[in-house]
Every structure is written in C-alpha cells, then in structure tokens.
C-alpha cells in the first residue's frame, strides 16, 4: 500500500469515526460507521488480508449494519434535540480518550513490541491459507462459534418477541391515558 493511500484512508477512517460519535441523527451516525468499516476493510486489503477485508464488507457493512438500520427504523428514532448532556462528562470523555491514545501509542510503539518481522509466505491472506489455518489449528473454536451463533439467534428471538397474553405496554398506556 503506497503511503499516500494510507494517509488518505487513515484520515477518512478517523473523520468518519468522529462522525459516528458527533452526529445527532442515529441514521447519520450509522452511515458514518459504515464508512469507517469500509475504510478499515480497504486497509485490511492493503495489508494483504484480502479475504478478511472482503468478508468485513460482506458481513459487517452489508449485513450487521442493515440490522442496526432496521432497529433504528423500528424504534422510529429521530434527531436528538434538547440539551446534549453534561459538559463535564464530555470534557472528561475527551480527556480520557486523548490519554488513552497517548498510552496506547507508547505501549504499542515497536521498540516495546519485541516481534521478529518476517516476510509473508506465498499465498498469504488467500482463501486457501485462511481456510487452512481455520480448519486445522482453530477447528474447535470454529465449531464452537456455530453454537454461539445458534445461541444468539435463539436469544434474540426470545428477547424481542412479545409473550402471548401480555399486551404491548405502549398500547396499554395509550389506552389508559
């Protein structure tokens, strides 16, 4: 990946990530998040993780974010109006974030990392090499993941459904008032 591309993508990722937490309309936040995900996916591809980068676009940007979109529609969330919350909290939050960046920067600077860099083997990041690792060294984890997904499906259905006999509390309240 040429350096100018990294600078462009990095700036785009940071700006859109800021957009996620600054926008007052949830849909705009979501769009900024999608932009961040796409940029990070392109960075993945630039780092020779081609399959994972495309998977990020297919699964994250193409499916999980649509789930968010549906929930925003379902709850009919509008632009947040009124006071934006405590100023002190915001100040504290920004300060904590800045401190975190500094700290992470010092911890993650390569002199401390002590890793031996090697050249990537042939076919690094291809589907064959990913599958080769996934279905040998990580086979048990892979199988357990399927159970996790099943549990998530059952759990989300159990959480979101209305029990028979119990009315929608919103409707009940509307009738009462």
């Amino acid at each position, binding site marked *: 990946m040429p350096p100018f591309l990294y600078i462009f993508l990095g700036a785009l990722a940071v700006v859109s990530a800021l957009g996620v937490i600054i926008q007052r309309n949830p849909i705009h936040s979501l769009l900024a998040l999608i932009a961040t995900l796409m940029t990070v996916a392109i960075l993945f591809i630039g780092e020779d993780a*081609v399959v994972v980068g*495309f998977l990020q676009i297919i699964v994250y940007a*193409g499916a999980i974010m649509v789930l968010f979109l549906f929930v925003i529609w379902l709850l009919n969330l509008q632009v947040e109006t009124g006071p934006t919350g405590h100023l002190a909290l915001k100040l504290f939050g920004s300060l904590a974030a800045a401190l975190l960046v500094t700290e992470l920067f010092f911890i993650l600077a390569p002199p401390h990392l002590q890793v031996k860099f090697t050249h990537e083997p042939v076919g690094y990041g291809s589907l*064959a090499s990913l599958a080769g690792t996934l279905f040998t060294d990580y086979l048990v984890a892979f199988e357990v993941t399927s159970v996790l997904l099943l549990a998530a499906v059952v759990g989300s259905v159990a959480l979101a459904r209305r029990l028979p006999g119990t009315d929608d509390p919103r409707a009940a309240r509307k009738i009462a008032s």
Partner: protein
Amino acid sequence: MTIELIAGAIKAILMIVAGLSLSLFLLYFERKGSALIQDRIGSNRATLTGLGKRMGMPNLGIINTTIADPVKMFTKEDFIPAGADKFLHTLAPFLSLFPVMITFVVIPFGDTILISGHRIGLEAANLNAGALYLLATIGLGVYGAALAGWSSNNRWALLGGIRATAQMISYELAMGLAIVSVIMTFGTLNLQEIVRGQGGVWFGFLPRWAIFTQPLAFVLLLVAGAAETKRIPFDLPESESELIQGFFIEYSGGKQAVFMLTDFAEQALVAMLLTTFFLGGWQIPWLMRDGFHLPGGAFLALPALAVSLMGVVAFLVKVVALCMFLGMVRWTLPRFRYDQLMRLGWKGLVPLGLFNVLVTAFVVVATGRVQ
C-alpha cells in the same frame, strides 16, 4: 508497465460504457418488447424531422427510447420534498448506482489478446478474489434503496425501502450459496479462471459449461438475481398498485432516471454473472485457441485475434439473450405476495442452496480434486 496501465483504464471505461449501453438497449426492449408481448404498439411517436415517416418507414420507437425519454427525464424539475433529509436524499441514487457500476470491472468479457508483444487479458480487473469482490459490492447495493426510502419522509417510500432491504438481504444468501457451489466446482475465486475452466468438451461434444454440472445453482442464481434486481415477479419494493412507486416515489427528474438506470444495469449485471458462472463466459462451444474442433473430428483453423474477438461477441450475445429472457419473465409473470416472497427465499432457495453446496462438496472430495 505503461501499456498495461493504459489498457486497464481503457478496459474499465469500456466495461462501464458497455453496461450503460446495455441499459439503453434494455430500456428499448422494455418499451417495444413489452408492447410486442402484450400485443400493443408501443412508443412510436418521436421522430427526428419526420424523415423516416416521409420515406414510408415504420417508426420503431428508437428515437423515443434512446433520445426523447432520457432528455425528457433529465430536463424535468429536480424536486426535494419538505422534511426530507436533503443530503441523503441526494446521495441515495448514486449509492444505488455506484455498487452496480463498480461490479462490472471484474467480469471477464474475453480471452487474452496480444498487443505489440504484451498479452492483455480481456477483463478490467483480474482479481484473485473476484467472486468475493462481487458479493461485497452486491451487498452494498442495499443502502441505496434503504436510504432513498428513509430520507424521502414518505410512508410509502419507507415501506418500499424496508421491503427492498429485507428482500435483498434474504436473496443475497441464496445468491451467495449458488456462487459458492460454482467456486467449489472450479476451485478458484478468480472469474477469468472460472471461465477458462469451462473450456473444452465432455464426451467429445458437450461443452464443459457449469450449467451442465450445476443446474440447480443456475436456477438459484437466476431466481435470486431476478429478486436482487427488484423486478417483476419480485418488484414488491416498487409495486405500483400498492406503494405507487415504492422507495423512489419522491424522486423526479435526473435522480429518478438514475434509479431506473440502476434497475437496467442490475439486470445486465445479473445476465453477465449468469453467463460468467454458468454459460461459459466468452467460451464458444468447440472453439479452442487455434480454431474450431467440431465433434465429428473436423477442424477449422482460425487466427488468434479472430478467436479472441469472437469470444467477446459470444459473451455479448449470451448476455443480451439472458437479458431478453429476464425481460420476458418480467412481462409474463404476476407479482408475488410478500409472505410468498419470504417463504420462497428462506424455505425454498436457502435450503436448496445448502443442499447443493453439500452435494458439491461430496462430489469434489470423491473425485479427489482437493489439494
């Protein structure tokens, strides 16, 4: 290096121009072909200076559909409704067109040609992960329809947007499964290699097209592709009789034209995908690099350039034929009901696709084609 770069740029532009011209052809077919099917006359009014009429020629409606209609659409008022999210309302048409247009670049439309000693592959981008790229860009097409529906501040538009999103997400799964079984058959994600793998013949006469080994996947991709394009019988997001025009009801002028263009470009894209994955792409039956090897043992030698160009023409012929088939389906079948649509997607196509992947996996392992 430079000649490859220039060739790449030319090929990318060529592919997008081809997509747009195919869309224009489909617009023409939509008007006159539907008229033919429904025993109407169709558009026959606009002429340039009335020349053809004076010479006694029938008006075929070419001027109507290729010049008059687009000019009319792009010169109409561009209206943004009150209370709409102006930014997203403007962005949505382009969000829906962009993924389709960038998908065209991975489709191989020919073999290689030799230009001044450089062998140039006839595909705009020869990606090793081409099939994944394709699934990724098709997956992003959801957002155009979804945001158009939401940002219009109109209930019909929102309903259309919700329907479009749910439908596209559901049928993407079946589409992915169909593509996965083809990938397993050929053992590669590279579309050009998938097409190469479909060269040659079985039993001396049957071309090695994937439609003969993966007929179920072909049907799956055909149905799921028709659903992805949101056209009859899957046009619930824009059904005129229920939602008037669905997610782009509040669009007018050029932006409306962009949505219609997306429709036609998607149709062309689905035809290209079907051709590439199942109908041998640019392969012509019995045609090898050096000429025709007919089943009877006859041989007809041809120069390499002619073979390459014939491949491009063959690809175009297949794509246009499939486009016309999709158009005929559109003017023949009635619309699904929404629950039928979801049932077909989740209880019909997805289990069939999984079954097909399973069988393909067994066959691939049994024939020992695993590294």
